[in-house]
């Protein structure tokens, strides 16, 4: 019987081989949507600092090693881009539970954010932080505007003024958002925002959309004061209260006797 005895390592070997095959084929199948962007070199000390910061600030909800708890989702595979978006915009660390995580003053320095992002990025395969070259606002603003109206404007408003969603959630305004953060939001789909991967909105498309948003930031509305860009509700309220109020005021004055 001795010769039929399997080595104690056989089971482990089979499991490892299985994991490599399934993981490898999954990665291959999804290769089209993954970023192979390695613009920032990650050092070991950065990873170590990121891990310490993660344990101190994130792990209570996201779990040790980012496996997730009942309070917050797993961060394995969300990528450095997602962590950078959440932390550098001040949404994370979260202050309180609610329909949506709020923007707050940023809690970390740029170096610390990079360290956290590098650590979260090392937990699994996910999109990396896009390079400055990918997010430069030197694309085609007209094309970006068309893509923005089709893919983004229904929630964020045609001029990026933001808008309401269901049950207390909302799409934030997109005025003066750093280019990298716009790119990361499209790529990772934070919170209730859908994911717009590189097959859906290509890196060129993303660049064009950033160019359009930057154009809006720099060019005021040609039609005069835009009343927050909210459209017919704000405009109607203005004309009914201020416009009609002025007309009523004039009418009263016309009919009043002089003192």
């Amino acid at each position, binding site marked *: 019987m001795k010769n039929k005895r399997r080595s104690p390592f056989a089971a482990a070997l089979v499991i490892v081989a299985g994991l490599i095959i399934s993981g490898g084929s999954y990665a291959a199948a999804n290769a089209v949507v993954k970023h192979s962007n390695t613009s920032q070199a990650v050092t070991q000390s950065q990873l170590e600092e990121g891990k310490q910061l993660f344990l101190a600030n994130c792990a209570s909800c996201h779990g040790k090693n980012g496996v997730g708890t009942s309070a917050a989702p797993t961060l394995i595979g969300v990528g450095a881009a997602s962590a950078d978006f959440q932390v550098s915009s001040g949404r994370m660390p979260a202050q309180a539970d609610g329909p949506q995580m709020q923007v707050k003053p940023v809690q970390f320095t740029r170096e610390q954010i990079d360290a956290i992002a590098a650590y979260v990025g090392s937990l699994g395969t996910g999109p990396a932080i896009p390079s400055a070259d990918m997010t430069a606002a030197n694309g085609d603003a007209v094309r970006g505007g068309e893509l923005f109206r089709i893919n983004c404007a229904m929630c964020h408003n045609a001029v990026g003024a933001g808008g309401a969603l269901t049950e207390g959630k909302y799409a934030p305004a997109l005025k003066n958002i750093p280019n990298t953060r716009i790119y990361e939001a499209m790529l990772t789909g934070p919170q209730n925002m859908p994911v717009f991967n590189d097959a859906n909105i290509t890196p060129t498309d993303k660049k064009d959309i950033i160019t359009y948003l930057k154009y809006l930031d720099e060019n*005021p509305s040609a039609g005069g004061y835009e009343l927050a860009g909210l459209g017919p509700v704000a405009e109607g309220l203005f004309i009914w209260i201020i416009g009609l109020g002025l007309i009523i005021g004039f009418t009263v004055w016309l009919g009043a006797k002089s003192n």
Partner: protein
Amino acid sequence: MSEKAKEHRYESGLAVVQSGKVSDPGIEPHRVRMTDKSEKLERTANRQVAALFIASAVGSAFSIFAYFAFPITSDLGTVRSNTLWLGFGITLGLLGIGIGAVHWAKTLMPDAEVYEPRHQSRSSEENRAAAIEIIKLADQESGFTRRKLIRRSLYTALAMFPLPAIFFFGGLGPNPADTLRHTMWRKGTRLAKDPYGTPIKASEVTEGSVFHVIPEGLQDLTDTKLEEKAKAAVLLVRVDPSVLKPIAGRENWSYDGIVAYSKICTHVGCPVALYEQQTHHLLCPCHQSTFDLTDGCKVLFGPASRPLPQLPITVDAEGYLIAQSDFHEPVGPSFWDRSAN
């Protein structure tokens, strides 16, 4: 109680008896204006009116200045200052004249109250009698009462005259026939990205993704492109297959968690495209109808009365997403002869 009220007093019943009728207060006593009492104030008002007219003249001059100082150039932003300052000048020009004239009349022109009693609206007896005479004479001379044949044929002609309009208006525009019941989607039509028409592979639709979809070939249409897009627009979403609630008869309409629903709201046809990745809610921005994407897009909230129609999809040999068929029901809002479900 006045005499009149007594006259109309009833023994019983529900009639409302008016007592203590408001009496005519007449014209209120004349109050002398400050400008009539004080020379100084009169001079002030005089200067105010003149100042308003001068302000008007300055405003008009300013709008001429603004026309040259803030021209509209190729930079669209210049429209803003051009419109603002031209409008400011013209407004001052008009308001100065108007307010000045009214202020002049109210403070300096005579303010004695005058009244003119309204004349009776009833004509005098002689005029009434004369009018009746004219009508009688006209009837006698034309024979309108006497000539039955003419009178009745005239009635018939007048009654018939508006009838053609019913048919003219009824025939306005082409009859939509069954175009409201069908879209461009056919068996095998590839799902393509709006607006450039790039076909979509199933592997590209990662979980949590939203694609705004048109049928492949739409971008090649010329005359009917917008009409077809208005009916065929689709939202494509991938969710974890385990959260999709199976709907009888539609088990194979999705592909590995990828579902496609009509983007046209069943309420009044706005594009429903506000997708929340975590709740799987689809929200219509016009009237807040909310649909549950995981449960056949049934209505969770709002005025829509039907779920969004689902487009049955699958993949072809090359891995591209294709439609299995057209929608199985008309998309968009209700119309006159659409059945209830």
